[in-house]
């Protein structure tokens, strides 16, 4: 499909602005002005709308396809949340208003949303206080790691290491490294989870924290979690909870009760906010009481008269991780979702998410190898290694699913499982959809035995076939340049 710049016609306009109603003309010195025009598209509004609508139709999405992408929690995003985030009282609110004198009173509704959402998240996770500022999951991890560093610094302890299991998301080690830590990789044990004994072996006074996803990316809950927390606490280390997989535990267990000290959540995974094709997200961070002084500035407080204020005077705070109060529009969506759900529906979310995953696992385990043959939580990992021996790799399985109108699972992750297919159906999918997925997976397994080439050709039903990624990296065409006009003979 042509890019929008190829659809440009000189002189064509989309939207217009009113003529200036002021007599003044700004005088800007010529050396401060751009020499050439910004060559933006010149298209009509209709052409723009048609172009972007056509582009949208070249996407798979939750609204159009089953999307069992592991560890991403691609659940349905209620339309209602989109509507309320667009209420003018929220969308048109300037973030600097609270910094004006008595400005907090100009934004009581918005501060109320922040405060109440944080309070609900505290109750769900068992944390004492939340900051809503972090702008995505990885940003929450970095915030959490900085809080841990600030805490140990205040204790006068020099701690340099963070333990992270080999099955962790790549953001965990990357975030720890930016916060200044050395990463110690902990191997997964025989049962698919981190063993307490492994933690014990890696323990030293230098350990600042253990970062853990629980259930982990294999979809397994770590029954030794309390023991592990005791070990880490024994060297004055802190327990960090990566909330990517909290959907499995909603209303049933709380990271705080397991011994975690810092928690980040992904509002765009667990709490109904959409993924947006890769953001924006929101990654609020909760902490236990003794870490609360280190939370980022500012913090929303509720006064005794029921009004809200922003607290900036925080001497132990790590400072400013975001320009303001977080991804407010995403937080409004999650708040709406939490109010719809209420306390009573939390358990049905996790219950149905875990049931859906176990159902698909039970139906598929005779057709694919299972990374760890045991009951799973909200997701599980298959291996296409049996198919790979017949020349059909996890990637081919993924492309075969695309031809059947299904978004593939997360592939080749966790890296500890060969030919991994990580499947997370979520609670909002029906049995009929799961059965269609199971049928497609079984058909692909059969094709792998009978006609592997058919899968090597896939996908054939998508707007483009397999793309040459090597050429993309070599050519580095990351910005459109019009072809040079033909040279006249």
């Amino acid at each position, binding site marked *: 499909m042509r890019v929008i710049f190829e659809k440009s016609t000189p002189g064509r306009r989309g939207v217009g602005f009113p003529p200036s109603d002021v007599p003044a003309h700004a005088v800007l010195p010529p050396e401060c002005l751009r020499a050439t025009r910004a060559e933006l*598209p010149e298209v009509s509004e209709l052409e723009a709308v048609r172009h972007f609508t056509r582009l949208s139709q070249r996407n798979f999405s*939750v609204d159009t396809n089953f999307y069992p992408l592991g560890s991403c929690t691609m659940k349905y995003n209620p339309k209602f949340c989109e509507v309320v985030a667009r209420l003018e009282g929220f969308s048109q609110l*300037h973030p600097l208003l609270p910094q004006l004198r008595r400005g907090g009173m100009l934004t009581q509704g918005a501060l109320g949303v922040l405060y109440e959402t944080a309070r609900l998240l505290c109750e769900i996770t068992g944390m004492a206080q939340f900051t809503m500022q972090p702008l995505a999951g990885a940003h929450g991890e970095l915030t959490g790691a900085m809080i841990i560093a600030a805490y140990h610094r205040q204790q006068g302890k020099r701690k340099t290491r963070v333990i992270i299991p080999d099955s962790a998301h790549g953001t965990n080690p990357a975030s720890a490294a930016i916060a200044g830590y050395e990463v110690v990789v902990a191997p997964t044990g025989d049962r698919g989870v981190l063993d307490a004994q492994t933690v014990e072996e890696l323990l030293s006074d230098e350990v600042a924290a253990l970062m853990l996803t629980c259930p982990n990316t294999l979809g397994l809950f770590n029954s030794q979690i309390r023991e592990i927390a005791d070990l880490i606490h024994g060297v004055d280390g802190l327990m960090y909870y990566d909330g990517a997989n909290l959907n499995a535990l909603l209303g049933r267990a709380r990271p705080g009760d397991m011994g975690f000290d810092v928690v980040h959540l992904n509002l765009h995974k667990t709490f109904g906010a959409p993924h*947006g094709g890769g953001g924006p997200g929101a990654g609020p961070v909760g902490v236990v009481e003794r870490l609360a002084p280190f939370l980022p500035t500012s913090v929303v407080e509720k006064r005794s008269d029921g009004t809200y204020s922003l607290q900036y005077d925080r001497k132990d705070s790590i400072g400013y*991780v975001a320009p303001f109060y977080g991804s407010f529009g995403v937080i409004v969506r999650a708040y709406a979702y939490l109010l719809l759900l209420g306390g009573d529906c939390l358990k049905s979310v996790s219950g149905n998410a875990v049931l859906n995953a176990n159902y698909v696992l039970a139906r598929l385990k005779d057709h694919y190898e299972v990374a760890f043959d045991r009951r799973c939580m909200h997701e599980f990992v298959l291996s296409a290694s049996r198919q790979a021996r017949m020349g059909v790799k996890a990637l081919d399985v993924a492309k075969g699913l695309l031809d059947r109108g299904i978004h593939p699972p997360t592939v080749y992750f966790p890296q500890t499982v060969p030919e991994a297919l990580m499947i997370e159906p979520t609670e909002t999918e029906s049995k009929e959809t799961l059965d269609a997925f199971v049928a497609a997976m079984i058909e692909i397994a059969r094709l792998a035995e009978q006609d592997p080439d058919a899968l090597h050709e896939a996908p054939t039903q998508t707007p483009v076939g397999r793309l040459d990624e090597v050429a993309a990296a070599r050519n580095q065409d990351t910005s459109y340049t019009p072809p040079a006009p033909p040279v006249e003979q």
Partner: protein
Amino acid sequence: MDYIGNTDAQRQEMLKATGAASIDELFEDIPAALRAHAFDLPPGMSEMEVRTRLERLAKNNAVDLVLFLGGGFYDHYVPSAADAILQRGEFYTAYTPYQPEASQGTLQAIYEFQTALCRLTGMEVANASLYDGGTALFEAAMMALRITGRNKIILDSGVSPIYRNMLYCYTSNLNIEFVEVPVYNGRTRRDVVAQRLDEDTAAIIIQNPNFFGFVDDLSDVVEMVHRVGGLAIMCFYPISLGLLKTPGEMGVDVAVGEGQSIGLPLSFGGPYLGLMATRKEYQRQMPGRLVGATTDREGRRGFVLTLQTREQHIRREKATSNICTNSALCALAALTYLTLVGKEGIREVARLCADKAAYASQRLDAIPGVQVSRDAPFFNEFVCKLPADAGDVVGHMVEKGFAAGFPLGRYYPGMERHLLVALTERRTKEEIGAFAEALEGVL
């Protein structure tokens, strides 16, 4: 309301397949002692009830104030078609485009966004977005440290204090030396910069227009840092580039900015859009996602995420950044905005902003006791010196229905009587007149 589709009968059938007697049995890996029993949470509500509650909260925010408040965040007009496109579920309910054949919509949009940003900034390569302007600035600083292998950064105090605070927060555990350079009459002090630059300097960070709204040609400052082998990082304001000299034209190495002004609502501070563009030679050190054009086996053009070995999902602790989820949908908003206003519109809107600021500055200058700082030209935002504490004045102006501007004393000690006033194309001559009258009334 939990949006679950399965019936009890279906659940029973599914349980049978799993061999479990009940859903609770599926959770048996969680030790009994760790199971939570009661939650202090309100009961679920219907859409109608939640809507009433949220509408009440939304009404309790002063969005009816006429805004002369900017500080890097502005109430520019967003064309209706831009938001209509964002509401396509195929865009906003998709994930990161890891499966390119199923994500050509998102991938092509990012490629077009990268192109539009390069053309706007005069830079060679742009990434798919970062969280916001402040985090983009931090990432740019980290890039400069990696590229130069040095650890000193010179920071012009005309750079947004909001971003400077973020920079200090992020680097508190890293061994980086920051040297702040004061501004003089709102402009970058070349003499002080010259004294501070040395062979340890990784980068200088400058902003144009700077936090005070002043416009400058900073080509000479860029040249100064290049002479010692350092990089120039510039914060830009995308709307201003409809008129102003681009970071590319000034020879800047890494240009970063906040994309809120091009198509995103103010939304009380987010979600926003971190913009980053650089030179081709530095693209492998650039953080975040990057989309490249390629072809499939039949020669059809398609788009993929490229140079992914820079990223955390492959390189883990050795990645250029920890960023994963970024601001893809906000980048789409910016692309649709830039497409709808187009080549002519971007210049028009920049011109309108500058003209309205010029007019407002004349009206305010005419008020006895008020003095607009004209030490340097300004774009859409300017500094007024008031005969009283700016914070107090702003407080009185709220009562008259205006968010009169940002009192600079909050971030710049000694500037307690200085007010930063912002104009966008949305302010009318009438509003500006009423604003001037109200200001005169409260002084």
